[in-house]
């Protein structure tokens, strides 16, 4: 079996070496059409470089002990090359469809080169052995480029995942805007669902802000919280305690009737926590404790 591989691979190696100019030229042209020019995804130099690098990696794979072994270091290197190339193009705004088309084009360029090589030998009669060899070459190209397409899709999924993670982080950041509304007074409107991981993030950000701004009062507004369960209420109490331990006053505002009912049925005692109906009342309470009086200007 290995003998057959080495025969087909040596034919492909010869083909690649004799037609290096034609194949890399065609790959470069297609690369420029898909990624260069007005698409502005890669410079002409980059396209030329990756065409050559791809060629070298494919040659290294063919010269390896078993070119059909997709666990070999040579195959892994080729796969990684495609993965990195895909990341590079996707990050710059390229489309996954173009990467797959480019991959298919490279496969076709190989088959075209093989066909023209076969035509040159057309004077000779095709034997069953030649047919078998051609079949092995086509199978090799098909399986290799299928794996490379998978590398492209893997890169696509990784990019999508990292975008989703970045968006989630941004959403978390914007969903918990801690604002110093007055010297030493922080407000934190909580909107949406509170789960353990989000509560931990809010708590961490809030405690650091208390230390950083030397805040003496924190008004936490729950107007945007639609429902609450025992775990969330436990987190809330934990957050209020942590604020108090830092030496700041914690004021809880905007508790909707359904939340109040839920807290009661969950046997949560907010006896040690200052509560006010609205954010505005909470701010007034914070100001009162700080000895600040806000009043209308006398006319």
């Amino acid at each position, binding site marked *: 079996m290995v003998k057959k591989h080495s025969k087909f691979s040596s034919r492909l190696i010869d083909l690649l070496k004799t037609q290096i100019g034609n194949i890399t030229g065609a790959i470069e042209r297609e690369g420029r059409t898909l990624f260069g020019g007005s698409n502005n995804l890669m410079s002409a130099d980059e396209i030329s470089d990756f065409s050559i690098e791809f060629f070298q990696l494919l040659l290294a794979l063919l010269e390896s002990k078993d070119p059909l072994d997709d666990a070999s270091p040579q195959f892994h290197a080729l796969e990684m090359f495609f993965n990195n190339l895909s990341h590079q193009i996707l990050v710059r705004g390229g489309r996954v469809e173009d990467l797959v088309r480019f991959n298919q084009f490279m496969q076709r360029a190989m088959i075209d080169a093989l066909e023209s090589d076969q035509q040159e030998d057309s004077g000779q009669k095709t034997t069953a052995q030649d047919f078998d060899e051609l079949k092995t070459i086509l199978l090799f190209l098909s399986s290799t480029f299928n794996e490379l397409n998978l590398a492209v899709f893997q890169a696509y999924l990784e990019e999508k995942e990292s975008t989703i993670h970045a968006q989630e982080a941004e959403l978390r950041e914007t969903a918990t805007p801690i604002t110093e509304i007055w010297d030493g007074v922080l407000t934190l409107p909580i909107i949406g669902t509170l789960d353990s991981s989000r509560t931990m993030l809010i*708590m*961490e950000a809030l*405690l*650091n802000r*208390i*230390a950083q701004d*030397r805040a*003496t009062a924190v008004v936490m507004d729950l107007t945007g919280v639609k429902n609450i369960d025992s775990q969330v209420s436990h987190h809330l109490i*934990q*957050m209020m*305690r*942590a*604020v*108090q*331990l*830092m*030496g*700041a006053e914690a004021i809880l505002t905007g508790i909707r009737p359904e939340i109040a009912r839920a807290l009661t049925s969950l046997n949560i005692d907010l006896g*040690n926590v200052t509560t006010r109906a609205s954010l505005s009342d909470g701010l007034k309470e914070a100001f009162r*404790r*700080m*000895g600040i009086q806000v009043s209308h200007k006398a006319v």
Partner: protein
Amino acid sequence: MSVSGLHLTAIGHGTLLLEPSFSLDIGSGGTALEEIIRRLQRVSATRLYYDLAELAIIEPLYYNWLNALGRACRTVNVRMICIHMQPTAAFALSRYMEQMPAFETALDVDEWNRETR
């Protein structure tokens, strides 16, 4: 009697500041606690500030020590106020604390004075 790691400084009329160093042995069977109460009574103190600036984490053992000291201070009519608690310490402490502690908390001495003025 001198207790290692115990630094008590008078910072005003009836007010002491306790800055514990890492060598303070909180598990010494109440020796440190007794010494602190003795020093507070000697100067007729009414307030004790406990500086936690150097503690990044307060574990249950240390929390029990703080609570015990807070309760002991109450029995001799002294208010114990923990100051400079680090965000990491407050975060960790709030996770296992069952009830409000036997001591008060403030950002720092100035802030506490301003609040209680």
